[in-house]
């Protein structure tokens, strides 16, 4: 075991797969000479050379399309977006081409490509740099959506996406987690896409989250522990396909479900989970399913407005107590 930052876990995943498979290449803004805007690809140009670690101009639609075309022709591109906010310009290629190729071609042409980069808010970056995109991409049939909360999962899931996934994968990281350390085994490992993890077992209430909101989920569980409430915390890890069976199994035990996410509330990941669990687990529920999302608004710049916008432990604890009918 080694304790390494999230960004290094991602780098190891990419580098190991690039060593294994000549068809894998990394392309994006500042990934090569600058060693990555957030230093995720540090040293990769030196190791793999400019044929395989490729700087692009600021042309998201263009280089995403190059990746999509290259994937159709047999390569396995890794496309980095400096942040997912900028991938909106490439949405046409992701939605209208990558996700639909297999369907339109009657199964002839797949698109084994990984799009990755940091996602969601990262402090006081203002409205245009703070969108959490899980629910957007999760809406699209034909792609898979991964959103890890720690370096260990990120490495295993990214390796899986690059090596074994034949379908397009959206891989959502977070710049505020890049420095977080986790224990990484010395031996190679893969984590299957589509499986949630139980981050903390518990009895009384199920809390589901993903990506950096897992921190809020786990801190909430800690707070609740002090008051004798045992929360089971589930880390989705993958958003599409959604591992609702793991959630349901937990709810069968706890009879209560609270979801924390950074998405906007309308048509969010929690909306989908709430639908699925009320349908499959109606008889097990002792309280309405509740959720904490970001505010139904663009994120403003001022520090107090950022705090008021994002889900936090205080609000989550309060809502958990409500579903447990704990007064005070």
């Amino acid at each position, binding site marked *: 075991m080694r304790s390494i930052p999230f960004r290094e876990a991602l780098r190891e995943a990419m580098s190991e797969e690039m060593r294994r498979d000549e068809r894998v290449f990394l392309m994006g803004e500042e990934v090569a000479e600058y060693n990555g805007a957030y230093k995720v690809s540090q040293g990769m140009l030196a190791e793999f050379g400019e044929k395989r670690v490729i700087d692009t101009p600021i*042309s998201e639609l263009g280089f995403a399309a190059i990746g999509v075309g290259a994937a159709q022709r047999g390569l396995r591109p890794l496309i980095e977006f400096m942040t997912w906010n900028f991938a909106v310009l490439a949405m046409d290629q992701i939605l209208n081409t990558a996700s639909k190729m297999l369907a339109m071609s009657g199964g002839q042409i797949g698109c084994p490509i990984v799009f990755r980069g940091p996602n969601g808010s990262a402090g006081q970056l203002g409205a245009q740099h703070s969108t959490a995109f899980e629910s957007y991409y999760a809406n699209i049939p034909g792609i898979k959506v991964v959103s890890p909360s720690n370096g260990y999962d990120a490495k295993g899931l990214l390796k899986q996406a690059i090596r074994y996934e034949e379908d397009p994968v959206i891989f959502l990281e977070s710049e505020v987690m890049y420095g977080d350390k986790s224990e990484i085994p010395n031996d190679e490992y893969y984590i299957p896409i589509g499986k949630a993890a139980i981050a903390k077992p518990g009895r009384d209430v199920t809390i589901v989250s993903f990506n950096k909101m897992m921190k809020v989920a786990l801190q909430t569980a800690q707070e609740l522990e002090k008051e004798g409430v045992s929360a089971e915390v589930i880390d989705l890890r993958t958003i599409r396909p959604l591992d609702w069976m793991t959630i349901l199994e937990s709810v069968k035990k706890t009879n209560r479900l609270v979801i924390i996410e950074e998405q906007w509330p309308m048509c969010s990941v929690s909306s989908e989970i709430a639908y699925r669990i009320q349908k499959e687990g109606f008889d097990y529920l002792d309280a309405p399913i509740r959720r904490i999302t970001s505010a139904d608004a*663009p994120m403003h710049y001022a520090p107090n407005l950022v705090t008021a916008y994002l889900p936090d432990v205080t609000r989550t604890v309060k809502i958990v107590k409500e579903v447990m009918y704990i007064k005070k």
Partner: protein
Amino acid sequence: MSTKFTKETYLYWYELMQLIRQFELKAEEMYKMAGKIRGFFHAYVGQEAIAAGCMTATRHEDPFITAYRDHGWALAKGTSANACMAELYGKATGCAKGKGGSMHFFDVKNHFYGGHGIVGAQIGTGAGLAFAEKYMGTDNVVLAFFGDGAARQGMLHEVFNLAMLWKLPVIFICENNNYAMGTSVHRTSNVIDIYKLADAYEMPADMIDGMSPEAVHDGVARAVKRAREGGGPTLLEMKTYRYKGHSVSDPQKYRTKEEVEEYKNQDPLVQVSRTILKNQFATEAELQAIDAKIDAIVQESVRFAEESPWPDDSEVLKDVYIDQNYPFITD
């Protein structure tokens, strides 16, 4: 030595450029030393001559729009240093009520349309402002600013074509400071002279010394005249340089100290003050008096920002819809 421009013009340029320079340096200090400013912060230091020349070649009503390197543009168009500094702090008295921050300054009263964070987006939005000016029959001309990096977005090509097709009154101004973050212009294209991108659309274009307010003024005045008379858009590539990193967090390993020094030798403030002194438009003491005045304005902006209130927490759901009865989802 005679000059084409008047004493008043030179003194205006000097004062404006000094205001932008001193404001940026103070703001950067408040970011780095005091931690009062957060988020991405892109200083305009080194590029002031472009603002100066554009201001004297346009009218107040001409809308300006730019990217996130926007502090200098707001100050040029007339936003007070107080409102700018307060915006950086995220205070309710800022030019966007503390909601925009460094990248999103807006001041429509002064015809400044911001402050945009998605590289290249405002090239198109700027042409849209121009479409409206033409539609409404004003003779206003829009100045749409963007970086050398932004020149590689598809947006530029679609909008150049549309603006020429419809002869929109817009001047596209590429502030070519030679870098898009760590990527120098020559690593982004086969076409290094960005003004040549206009050729494909037969759009008039010019390359201009962006360290010289005189040259900027002349180039912009020509383009503005053409646009006001219905002649349509122009692309102006202005060669300039940013003295600071891309943003406060940039280690700048992609360029040498010598390169930065070379550009500082062409500093527009130094050049303009030299011309002023040579032509006896002002004495050394008078320039120092201007500097002192600017210093006071900048100091005052910090005090103002410090003492201003934060926006109320309820602002989270305000300015999202004009519809005051919009049913927000709150749980």
